[in-house]
């Protein structure tokens, strides 16, 4: 019994020492703060040794706590009490705390970070995707929350108890059947919906009277080149073997369809009109990703791919909807493609039909006089657009570039 007394006294003494140390340093700190000017701690925070020492201090602290626990358990043993600390209880309680804090964390994430995600889909098919998204979100959230509650409540209720014996319950075919069939049914619904939506996105029946606008995109390390069709509405042929320093995309200008194709340094699309992107790549695989439209498709060298969709919200409308005057649609690369993968972007603008027509007339053709010579074509260039409009066409894109850099 005297042992306990000694330990008790020691513990008291230690506590007293710690307390006095703590209070005296606190007093010192206060005094120091009162007298000296605030010291610039920046270099200290930046030095590695500071963090190493912090970590070692933490280790020391853990070691001390560990030893203290050991001493406590040993004293319990010497006292003849069988159990030291009931770690089963502690862990079970920790799981419950984890559950409660975790549920709050999930609520926080859904409400705070959930608000920071993409705005509503700005395309026709995107609305369907968002619908599927919501259904899947609700279903999975229910299962996620329910299974975690069940699990951590079970671990608390059925934590170890010497006096109790577990319930021998090896199987129950009925229950097992239920939880095979119910998920199967739910998944069947999801599969069917997903399958039909997927088909509606990728199997478009073409209406000959209302052809989609064709735009060709060529990706290369680390830029997007956009080619609009000219008046004929057809983007002409190209061949990678024709690439030269002047003919960057390898456009085949012997193809009549190519001759009026237009260069564009941004993607401008009329609202509520279907557009079909033909995606090609010059070097490695990139991915044509426009998150606000729920559009993504890889660009593969040697294999043109196509994505057709209809934008439904203009940039200006979206600015109003999101309440963000700087909002703009973006095209980015989402397939690892090299060192500048993280900065491969293009501004996308959705405008009214009228604005689009206006913008289009200001775009220059790919076919320059130099290229005409190279392809042995007559150098009778069509009348160039007036200078004033040419500068006007450059202006908005320059603004957009500025916006990006911000």
């Amino acid at each position, binding site marked *: 019994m005297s042992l306990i007394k000694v330990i008790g006294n020691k513990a008291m003494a230690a506590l007293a020492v710690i307390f006095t140390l703590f209070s005296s340093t606190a007093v010192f700190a206060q005094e120091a703060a009162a007298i000296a000017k605030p010291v610039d701690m920046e270099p200290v925070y930046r030095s590695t040794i500071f963090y190493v020492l912090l970590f070692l201090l933490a280790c020391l602290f*853990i070691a001390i706590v560990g030893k203290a626990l050991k001493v406590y358990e040993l004293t319990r043993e010497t006292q003849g009490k069988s159990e030291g600390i009931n770690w089963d209880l502690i862990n079970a309680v920790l799981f419950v705390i984890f559950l409660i804090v975790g549920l709050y964390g999930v609520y926080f994430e859904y409400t705070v970070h959930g608000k920071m995600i993409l705005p509503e889909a700005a395309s026709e098919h995107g609305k369907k995707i968002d619908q599927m998204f919501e259904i899947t979100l609700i279903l999975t959230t229910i299962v996620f929350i329910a299974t975690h509650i069940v699990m951590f409540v079970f671990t608390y209720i059925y934590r170890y108890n010497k006096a109790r014996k577990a*319930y*021998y319950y*090896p199987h129950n075919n009925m229950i097992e059947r239920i939880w095979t069939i119910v998920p199967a049914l739910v998944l069947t619904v999801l599969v069917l919906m997903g399958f039909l939506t997927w088909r509606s996105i990728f199997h478009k029946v073409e209406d000959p009277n209302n052809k989609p606008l064709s735009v060709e995109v060529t990706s290369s390390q680390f830029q997007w080149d956009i080619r609009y069709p000219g008046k004929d509405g057809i983007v002409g042929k190209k061949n990678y073997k024709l690439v030269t320093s002047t003919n960057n995309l390898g456009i085949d200008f012997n193809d009549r369809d190519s001759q009026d194709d237009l260069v564009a340094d941004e993607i401008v699309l009329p609202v509520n009109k279907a557009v079909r992107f033909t995606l090609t790549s010059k070097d490695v695989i990139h991915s044509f990703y426009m*998150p606000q439209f729920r559009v993504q498709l890889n660009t593969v060298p040697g294999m043109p791919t196509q994505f057709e969709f209809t934008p439904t919200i203009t940039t200006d409308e979206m600015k109003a909807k999101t309440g963000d005057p700087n909002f703009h649609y973006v095209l980015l690369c*989402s397939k690892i493609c090299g060192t500048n993968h993280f900065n491969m*972007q293009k501004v996308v603008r959705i405008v009214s039909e009228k604005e689009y027509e206006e913008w289009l007339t200001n775009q220059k053709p790919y076919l320059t006089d130099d290229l005409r010579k190279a392809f042995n074509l007559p150098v009778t260039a069509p009348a160039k657009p007036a200078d004033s409009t040419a500068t006007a066409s450059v202006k908005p894109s320059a603004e957009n570039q500025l916006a990006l850099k911000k």
Partner: protein
Amino acid sequence: MSTISTHDTHHDDHGHHHETFLTKYVFSQDHKMIAKQFLITGIIMAVIAMILSILFRIQLAWPDHNFPLLEQLLGKWAEGGRIRPDFYLALVTIHGTIMVFFVLTAGLSGTFSNLLIPLQVGARDMASPFLNMLSYWFFFAACVIMMSSFFIQTGPAAAGWTVYPPLSAVPKAIPGSGLGMTLWLISMILFVASSLMGGINYVSTILNMRTKGMDFWKMPLTIWAFFLTAVLGILSFPVLVAGVVLLIFDRSVGTSFYLSDMVFGTQIMPNEGGSPILWQHLFWFLGHPEVYIVIMPAMGLSSEIIAVNSRKPIFGYHAMVYSLIGITVLSLIVWGHHMFVTGMNPFLGGVFMITTLIIAVPSAVKTFNWLATLWKGNIRFTPGMLFAIGMVSFFISGGLTGIWLGNATLDINLHDTYFVVAHFHLVMGSAAIFGMLAGVYHWFPKMFGRLMDSKLAYLHFWVTFVCTYLVFFPLHFLGLDGVPRRYYAFTEFEFMHKWMTVNKLVTWSAIVAGLAQVAFLFNFFYSIFRGKRAPQNPWESNTLEWTTPVERIHGNWPGEIPTVHRWPYDYSKPGSESDFIPQTVPFSETMSSNLFHDFEGNTEAEQIQREWNAKNDPSKNNE
């Protein structure tokens, strides 16, 4: 069983071999030593991969800061204290490769298949101990070659762990695709050879060397999981080798299997007629089964640990086995869900969506069965049990987002974003790592004859568990905002700026989780030498490995190999005095707890039981 008895005598003759240091610790052919070699190599690789991940997390959280220390550590890769973009991609690539292949395939399967298969089926050793040794050394060589790529001029492979050509095929595309990529490919071939040798060994041992009485339906779920994992590996890994060999040809011989229509700058490449999509098919034909190769052993280990520590039979043993079989079969026909937006024929996308979502059913069954095992249990929170529960939690959290990504329609917008990163780090990364750690804590006494300190283990578990969620849960929302993965910095797009604080939180959590592993490492290595000595059966478990002596002798059992009489999950059986009945106990010794169901239609045994019941406990005959 004649094969077993000849095997016995064979080993009795060899029992007193003189073993040198070299044959015992280095070129060992003893499955237990090889398991330890796999484990320790796996742990070292895991620490390396973890440090790599913290390096690139630092870059993501503070893209505008200079850290002079980084320059001291990494030299030219971090000039001015800032990681270079190409080195960032190399870090991401090697982190992924090491974690998926070297840690979660070799470190997990290699360790526990080697350790537990002979011990739990009742065999003296693996079917081919020499092949087993070779398997480890091929793996070791693969690790060394992979790490050596950090010490070459152009740096390690940097095309992502999936190494899609043309990026991985053309050195002009990224510096890492030079010698670094060659080393990656060589390392991968050695690795596949290693895992094939291991896999063939596991399968043949399980099929041929089970002890008397150990029929398939008496095998613990761990063995089922290892068996199906090995089968899956044997079926899918060769396809990766085929793909890798073709990639080597494209890179070094000038063929065009994967390459066509490429221009770099104005230089027109001569390759023509190949398809980059072909690589993706070949890669994911392994790549998708691979994630089940990673998770199934973790499932097996967790099932066993949960049953032992709940003191209850695993709920729905047969359903657990059938769901494992279902996962194995289905996993071979779902690879296309990695390719929904690669330009693959959209019809195929629809088909792969169906098969992918079907695989959620066996996964759901497994989850519910684990929960049902906890119900009315008597749960001991041993360190192994904590990690097994953590594994189930991660499997649920990460598995549910699989339903999103498996849906081709949703994948259009989620593909290659942080949502994918969050998904697979939870469901296959964290869940498998937790399954592995659960296994390490649980079977540590079998490996080293000592116990690990449980208090440090609790600390390790709680910090890691909480921090892992803090790291990966917020990342889902970055993905939902359309932030692509493998971005060097989130500075160039305005809409990504709002995630900077979240990135800092994630990085700090990753650092804390990383530091928490120090508790594990200290505990692990300290306990090997100084841990508390373990009793023979520390967790009061039923399986065969706990009938071997603590000294871990060559040949596993000093005398005859024990005979198995019952399934491994007779925990808390009513009528039995102790709450566990090892597999080696015959029914004749447990008359008071036998159920008619136990005799599997053996009428003679049923008759004996009926007579015994009539004498001692007449009420039981009414069933």
